[in-house]
């Protein structure tokens, strides 16, 4: 549970290399861990970005946006997490799908890395589309480049690659050819929804990786439930990957807002705490 390396990947985006020999032994692409920063903390899920069986390590990449991720960002090399449990969830289904398109948006780019590695290993012909609001938010480009046959980048402001959203190049690609065996997408919910809407009429298998709110992460509480087709599924044990054409994204977006007010309150508390800590060290 000890943090062995800490790296700032971009503004507000941090990577930890964590010692966890047991999780490293079993982690598969698409699986996640749950962690607590301290005894009074909450349990949050994070995708396992990479794992190394021999070294007994796993990597997580997180965006410092909420209370817990910001607090996590204050930890440094040598610090230990209060709790760490995993690998949880079902692994992404990996096989040679032939031609595939993998899309990553924002911190979702970190989450597609293990899947890219596995798909490449299975012999897929991969086109990757990365998207971000602006060039600083398009992360890990060099690592993605190594794992993909073709790379397309889009930014909302045109500061890197094409100006616009990932759906523009995706639309072009599937208009030219429909023989893609898989479209795999991780990113903000509106992006996954737009991608799924686009591929639906072409009947291209589309897998999205959902980031529901969780408490236990082992199928006990049902907080992460999501409507898939007509069924109620738990993201933690039935997912996190689901058929994008069946996900009720609007419901998911609502459910992700449940604790927005609490989050604001918690962030105020954190800012005060950080200010106090600074005053004390001065």
């Amino acid at each position, binding site marked *: 549970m000890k943090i062995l390396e800490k790296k700032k990947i971009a503004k507000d985006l941090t990577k930890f290399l964590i010692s966890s020999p047991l999780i490293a032994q*079993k982690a598969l692409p698409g699986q996640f861990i749950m962690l607590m920063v301290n005894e009074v903390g909450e349990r949050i899920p994070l995708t396992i970005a990479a794992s190394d069986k021999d070294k007994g390590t796993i990597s997580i990449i997180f965006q410092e946006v909420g209370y817990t991720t910001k607090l996590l960002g204050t930890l440094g090399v040598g610090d230990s997490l209060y709790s760490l449990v*995993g690998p949880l969830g079902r692994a992404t289904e990996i096989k040679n799908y032939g031609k595939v398109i993998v899309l990553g948006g924002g911190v979702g780019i970190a989450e597609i890395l293990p899947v890219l590695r596995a798909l490449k290993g299975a012999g897929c012909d991969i086109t990757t589309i990365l998207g971000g609001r602006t060039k600083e938010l398009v992360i890990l480009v060099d690592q993605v480049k190594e794992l993909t046959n073709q790379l397309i980048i889009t930014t909302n402001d045109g500061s890197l690659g094409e100006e616009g959203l990932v759906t523009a190049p995706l639309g072009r690609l599937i208009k030219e050819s429909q023989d893609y065996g898989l479209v795999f997408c991780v990113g903000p919910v509106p992006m996954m929804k737009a991608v799924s809407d686009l591929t639906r009429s072409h009947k291209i298998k589309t897998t999205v990786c959902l980031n529901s709110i969780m408490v236990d992460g082992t199928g006990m509480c*049902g*907080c992460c*439930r999501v409507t898939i087709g007509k069924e*109620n599924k738990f993201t933690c044990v039935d997912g996190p990957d689901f058929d994008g054409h069946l996900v009720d994204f609007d419901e998911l977006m*609502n*459910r992700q807002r*449940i604790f927005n007010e609490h989050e604001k309150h918690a962030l105020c508390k954190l800012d005060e705490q950080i200010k106090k800590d600074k005053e004390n060290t001065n």
Partner: protein
Amino acid sequence: MPKPSPKQVPMPTQDPKERVKNFLEVPHGYTIAQAQEEAVRCIQCKNPPCVEGCPVDINIPGFIDFIAKGDFKASIRKMKETNALPAVCGRVCPQEDQCQKVCVVAKMGESVGIGKLEAFIADWEAKSGEIELPEIKPSSGKKVAVVGGGPAGLAASGQLAKFGHKVKIFEALHKMGGVLSYGIPEFRLPNDIVDREVNYIKSLGVEIQTSFVVGKIKTIDELLSEYDAVFIGTGAGLPWFMNIEGENYNGVYTANEYLTRVNLMKAYTFPNHITPVTKGKRVAIIGAGNTAMDAVRTAIRMGAKVASIVYRRSLKEVPARLEEIHHARQEGVDFKLLTLPIKYHADSQGWLKEMECLKMELGEPDASGRRRPVPIEGSNFRIPVDVVVIAIGNNPNPLIAESTPDIKVGKKGNIIIDEATGKTNKKSVFAGGDIASGADTVVSAMRAGKIAARGIDEYLRTGLW
């Protein structure tokens, strides 16, 4: 012998007006004088029916007699001969359906307050600071893995340790106790008391590994390569839904989620503990079992103006313990009986606003012997709500069965066992508690854990399956 008083020594409790503002335990517990006064009410039956009524075979007249005589050390020793978790049992067992139901004194008035005396003697020992360890048999050299740190796993571990086996408990959450920690609220079972009981089990030499999800990080087969036997006590943690429209609106919780947030993660102290929970003003709990009572009393403490139990049958059929119903009533819980939710309504942002219900009437008795509730056509009405907690039950946790394809499970995903030994169909693997029986009481899980411990001991000593 003088005739015993027909009434139990009343338990001093927190005033309902005060306790709805805190999460402290409701009963204060007997003083020594009160406990002794109650203990002499026991008439020391030669063939005590209460012991027959106890799922974990406590020598009830024995431990009570020592309280009466003032030898508290001897009393707790007697207790722990058969029950390693008396502070828990004394608080959460449904004594009125077990030991106290068959108490001979009850024929002349109220039964002996066995549960209250059990909690008293457990707390007396904790306060004394001297926890006596029981006799532990010499090491057998055998190792047992216990999967799940709840009542079944704790009871099995305590017993196995006493038999001289090396035990390690694997718990999925970051904290031990299972439902005792995440489910039962602090005002009924303080977390400190759970910690105390867990520490006792540790003191018997049991090792504990938290944050370890068997089925994910290691399979049962992998555990079997390191251990001589495995006990599965992973409980009934898969929540049921009614599958009605709107159950995924914001504000609709399962009891597991609501209680886990408040108890395990201490959302009632937010933002001191950072896990949030929605503080509803108008809260409805669906169901009327003990979990529903826990949830509704939690909602009141979280500041609800109206907290209701919504139940499709009548008061007579309410499955919760009488004491829980009594406490809930005292705290102002509203009972909406013969009421069936059929649909939830939300605002445009997906936030729960109203619950649509049907009025019910009781028809002919059904398979359970209770009169079947029948909807009254056209009786639809709406109740304003901002939080709903679904507390209608749980299925056994599916993680182990999914990752152990050769273990035999029933229709509801319950692991099938031989009731007398806890044996599953898989060699060296035992199970017990809610994972085998489906959702039941804490003490029945403990009983199953103890039975399996005996089964495991015999298997390890003889090698016979």
